[in-house]
């Protein structure tokens, strides 16, 4: 195998690779043994700590309701943030200065602020100025924080998606006499949606991860919060963390796989312009829990596929 860093290995390189592999195996087994020992010294492998996860009670009482709330908040946030993001993304491309500038300011402002701050503020705001019951308040606050932040991230995705389309599309629309609104609505937006679909789906990973903030800081009863109640009941802190982490990994893995499947599919389509914003550009990879880039102009990430 050849890459930019190294050529196909010859006899000496092959020997060196074998030695490196052996050294690495030794180091890795030392690490694993150390972790196992660490757990064993504190009796964390005892079956009675893990047994609760084989009963239905642990799942139906603590974990599944928590997971349901996590997904509910993430889904709501996505559904609300998407049209808002589209609105702001399109506004940023407006020909009018008085639309473009304020939209840009709003987007950059909310992208520069941690989601946690937005959640804390929303929580307090609902408490003081609205009649939202204290039961619903955490959900409202979490969704509000996520919407404000992710709408501004999605606005950038939408903008990049539209900018990624070939210029000829706009020119052709102009040539057949479409107005600006028509061009956007019937030519650019429908194509841009397919271009940015993978990026939008993988933004969902970021949203799912950020719901955990609400569980710890404002008492939203999501998965991580459910873990705390569970661990208090069964006294199994370490196993509960491991199980919850695995649940998050599985959920996010499903979302990521779906996004890359979508990306592959869209790239293969002959009809499209061939421009796709890779899923990794905004969501899963550059971004983080309470995350997201702050650099103005996402178009650096947009890649045109070879076709």
């Amino acid at each position: 195998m050849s890459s930019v860093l190294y050529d196909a290995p010859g006899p000496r390189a092959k020997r060196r690779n074998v030695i490196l592999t052996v050294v690495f195996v030794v180091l890795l087994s030392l690490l694993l043994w150390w972790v196992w020992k660490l757990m064993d010294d504190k009796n964390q492998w005892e079956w009675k700590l893990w047994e609760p996860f084989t009963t239905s009670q642990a799942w139906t009482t603590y974990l599944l309701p928590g997971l349901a709330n996590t997904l509910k908040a993430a889904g709501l946030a996505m559904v609300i943030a998407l049209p808002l993001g589209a609105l702001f993304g399109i506004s940023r491309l407006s020909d009018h200065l008085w639309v473009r500038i304020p939209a840009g300011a709003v987007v950059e402002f909310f992208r520069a602020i941690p989601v946690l701050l937005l959640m804390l503020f929303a929580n307090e705001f609902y408490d003081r100025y609205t009649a939202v019951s204290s039961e619903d308040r955490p959900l409202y606050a979490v969704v509000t924080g996520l919407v404000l932040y992710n709408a501004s991230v999605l606005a950038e995705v939408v903008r990049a998606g539209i900018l990624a389309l070939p210029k000829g599309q706009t020119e052709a629309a102009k040539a057949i006499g479409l107005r600006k609104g028509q061009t956007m609505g019937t030519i650019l937006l429908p194509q841009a949606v397919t271009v940015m679909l993978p990026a939008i789906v993988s933004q969902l990973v970021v949203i799912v991860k950020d719901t955990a903030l609400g569980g710890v800081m404002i008492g939203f009863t999501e998965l991580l919060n459910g873990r705390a109640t569970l661990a208090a009941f069964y006294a199994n802190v370490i196993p509960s963390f491991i199980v919850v982490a695995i649940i998050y990994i599985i959920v996010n893995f499903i979302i990521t796989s779906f996004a890359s499947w979508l990306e592959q599919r869209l790239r293969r389509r002959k009809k499209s312009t061939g421009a796709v914003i890779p899923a990794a550009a905004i969501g899963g990879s550059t971004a983080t829990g309470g995350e997201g880039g702050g650099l103005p102009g996402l178009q650096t990430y947009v890649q045109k596929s070879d076709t």
Partner: protein
Amino acid sequence: MFDFLSEYDDPTLLGAFWVTIQLTLFSALGSLVLGTLLAAMRVSPVPLMRGFGTVYVNVVRNIPLTVIIVFTSLGLADIFLWTMGADDVKLQAFRLSILGFVAYTAAFVCEALRSGINTVPVGQAEAARAIGLSFSQVLRLIVLPQAFRSVIGPLANVLIALTKNTTVAAAIGVTEAAYLMKGMIEKEAQTLLIGAIFAFGFVVLTLPTGLFLGWLSKRLAVKR
């Protein structure tokens, strides 16, 4: 209007943001080291190392940072009794959170570095080998100079995300900006003003960094 601010002395407003800055700097340094190590594994010719790097990145990237940070406190400190060489609880939480940030951010640093290396066309290295440069010369003279330039943009994004992510440390009682804001906004009447103050603080921290590094990455970009 700003009178209430003087009532807070542990931490003060500036003190809290100073903790945020410290968290960011220490975590950035740590994750740069660990991330580089992981990136080296992910692009190494040894399949097992590549596999380990891939597994680490994909596992860590899919766990919420909040889970990791809370784990450092409830797991590492409470169960495994890692005190991080600190004799008081505050310093311990501070160091534990940095440990969590490093473990988490390293995965993103690794991906940024790897994507930087991947932007260098294979033909560059092939041409370098063809004129007889050795492996270290190829790396030193041809590949890395180009990779470093294209890595600035993605790394800047990671740094900005890290700055914002440090607020999660409030979950284990590190007295940084979000921790102070939570206390203040619950007690004081000026909800909007407090929100605006802390938002402004983060805009000041992240916007110049983003603009400067964005300008730098555009300036240094390899024109192809």
